[in-house]
């Protein structure tokens, strides 16, 4: 009689399947759970540097008395509808002509006038380089804006004042940004 292989072995192949049903159950529970707590938009937060319980005038007066003898930089950027004005305790940085903003608005590809944040950043970088750490407030900058400047512009200006982006690197400029009441 010829050799006949056992038929039983073939059954073994079919039953080698892993039982993944409990794993599926786990997934079905885990995925909705994680979906509800997934973060699709990343949020950030900008800390404002304000003295506690200060209403404009009082804070100004208290600040000035003890520090009058120390030379301060008092750097500030004013956002107007024509562009940015940069000023310090010593002077206001003029534009190409008297009365012009330090950094004027530019036109983008579509001919819409927009704020030139990179030029502002570059200018502030020059100021930072020149002033170094000579002043006690070399990390601080004050932001002023006209009444109708929109919030996004203010935030972008803060970004430009905080860091200078060049060649994919970011150089810290004036990280302590404070906001000041509008221009009247």
């Amino acid at each position, binding site marked *: 009689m010829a050799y006949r292989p056992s038929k039983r072995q073939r059954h073994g192949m079919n039953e080698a399947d892993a039982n993944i049903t409990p794993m599926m159950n786990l997934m079905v529970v885990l995925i909705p759970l994680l*979906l509800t707590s997934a973060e*699709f*938009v990343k*949020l*950030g937060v900008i800390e404002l540097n304000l003295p506690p*319980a200060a*209403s404009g005038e009082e804070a100004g007066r208290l600040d000035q008395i003890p520090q009058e003898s120390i030379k301060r930089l008092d750097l500030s950027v004013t956002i107007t509808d024509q562009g940015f004005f940069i000023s310090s305790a010593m002077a206001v940085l003029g534009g190409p002509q008297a009365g012009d903003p330090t950094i004027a608005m530019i036109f983008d590809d579509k001919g819409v006038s927009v704020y030139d944040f990179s030029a502002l950043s570059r200018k502030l970088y020059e100021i930072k380089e020149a002033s170094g750490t000579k002043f006690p407030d070399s990390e601080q900058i004050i932001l002023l804006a006209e009444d109708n400047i929109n*919030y*996004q512009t203010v935030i972008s200006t803060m970004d430009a004042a905080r860091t200078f982006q060049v060649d994919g690197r970011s150089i810290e400029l004036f990280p302590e940004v404070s906001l000041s*009441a509008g221009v009247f």
Partner: protein
Amino acid sequence: MAFIPSHRKKHRHEKREVRLQLTSMMDMFTIILVFLLKTYSTQGQLVNPSNDLTLPSSRIQTIPEMGLDVTVSNDWILVNNKPVVRTAAVLASEDYLIGSVQQEMLKYANEAEKMESQYGAVFSGKVTIQGDKNIPYRLLMRVMYTCGQAKHPNMRLVVYKLEA
């Protein structure tokens, strides 16, 4: 008499053939699971997105913290998600202080101060301001001034993080 195949045997045969292929579904679920774990946040939802509230975007990398919520949308000013006053009404008025918002915030401040004296939960006066990107600067100033006058001097502005 014709041959009738056994019904029981036929049934047994079919049962072995019909098998749900779960393996590919498992692969898919594994990928989704990894993706969701990566975007997992323990913070929960901080902002309720709506049509008239688009936060500005910024390159800042600071991680948000919870605090009292003041939302300034194009339509309403909300304190802890409760509408308090119409934005248009605030813009129309000449007053620098927003009275109704101050009242509402003082309520929270007083409660927190009570908690501080009774249970020692420190009240730091933290407030997060969520403003629409199109609100004018004067409105932002008024809201900030109001926060300061309502015992919440510790202000933060919430923004969308731009990928660096």
